[in-house]
């Protein structure tokens, strides 16, 4: 029987982690449906997911994290889910946090619920460069939306139907990494947002998508995206954002 919340897990070459992630979610949160979006993996990710009896949508190429999530939103829309929760397939997110996000979405009627690593003290360690990048993004969000978000890069997010329907439309969701730019836009559009404390774990196996030179290019891209969002909102302020 179809449940009212869908967990969307975008994956790219996560054969080492995806099996245990699915097992943990099934064990700790059996009241949700799971869809895995295979973003062009070339390892055994698809085979492992299918062996767990979980529905998987496989993209022909590696388009990017944002594109995989958007496909999940479209699937949720097609199957009429009330809420969706984005959940990373690398084992960093804790399935025990799903129920907290689900409750906040169901009872408090927020549009976006962000699982934040930095509200409460946690064991999650981040490098100095990541700390600086986070501080920069937090400052930009506060500057342009007057809203304090502690963890703008968190991939663990719960979204209402209104939110994921908006994200499903063409040009409304980035191809690569949806982050502070998307948050600023949603806050300016009036989507209600809240952060709740969650516990995240460090990646144990595989390679992070934010490794190598990518963070520098990413910061440049995100700064430009924020500028575009702010200018768009300024010029289209009569029509919303």
């Amino acid at each position: 029987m179809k449940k009212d919340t869908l967990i969307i897990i975008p994956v790219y070459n996560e054969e080492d982690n995806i099996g245990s992630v699915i097992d943990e979610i099934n064990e700790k949160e059996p009241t949700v449906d799971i869809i895995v979006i295979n973003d062009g993996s070339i390892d055994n990710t698809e085979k492992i997911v299918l062996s767990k009896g979980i529905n998987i949508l496989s993209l022909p190429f590696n388009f990017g994290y944002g594109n995989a999530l958007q496909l999940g939103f479209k699937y949720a829309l097609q199957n009429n889910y009330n809420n969706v929760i984005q959940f990373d397939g690398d084992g960093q997110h804790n399935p025990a946090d799903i129920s907290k996000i689900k409750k906040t979405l169901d009872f408090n009627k927020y549009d976006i619920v962000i699982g934040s690593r930095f509200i409460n003290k946690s064991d999650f360690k981040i490098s100095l460069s990541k700390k600086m990048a986070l501080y920069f993004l937090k400052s930009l969000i506060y500057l342009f939306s007057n809203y304090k978000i502690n963890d703008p890069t968190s991939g663990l997010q719960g979204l209402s139907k209104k939110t994921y329907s908006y994200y499903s439309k063409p040009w409304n969701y980035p191809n690569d990494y949806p982050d502070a730019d998307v948050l600023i836009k949603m806050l300016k559009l009036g989507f209600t947002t809240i952060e709740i404390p969650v516990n995240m774990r460090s990646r144990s196996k595989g390679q992070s998508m934010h490794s190598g030179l990518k963070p520098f290019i990413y910061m440049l891209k995100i700064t430009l995206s924020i500028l575009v969002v702010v200018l768009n909102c300024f010029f289209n302020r009569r029509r919303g954002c």
Partner: protein
Amino acid sequence: MLTLSLRLFIFIIGSLFTFIIMYFLLKKRISERNSIPYVLGLSIIITLIIFPDILDFLSYKLGIDYPPALLFLFAILYLFILNIYQTIQLSIFNEQIRELSQHMVLNKNSYKQDDANE
């Protein structure tokens, strides 16, 4: 003032590029629609070379002492505009490919579910 040797050189290069574009058009490597900016650009260059007085007149009006500099300025600006146009096209194609791939995957899944239900 454009020297005769410079005019001849630019004319040969322009004609060569026109020939290359025509070759690709005949071989169906480039569509008629996409070849228009190149054909247009080359036509302008060849016209300016055949009638250098136009370039001299424009240079004089714009206060440029060396007319070939204006020709190169036009060429750079034209290439810049062409590049922006192609980047826009690329972004649109990228979004369309995304949409298509998502549509394809969702459809495939629907068929799979229909088959499972039958």
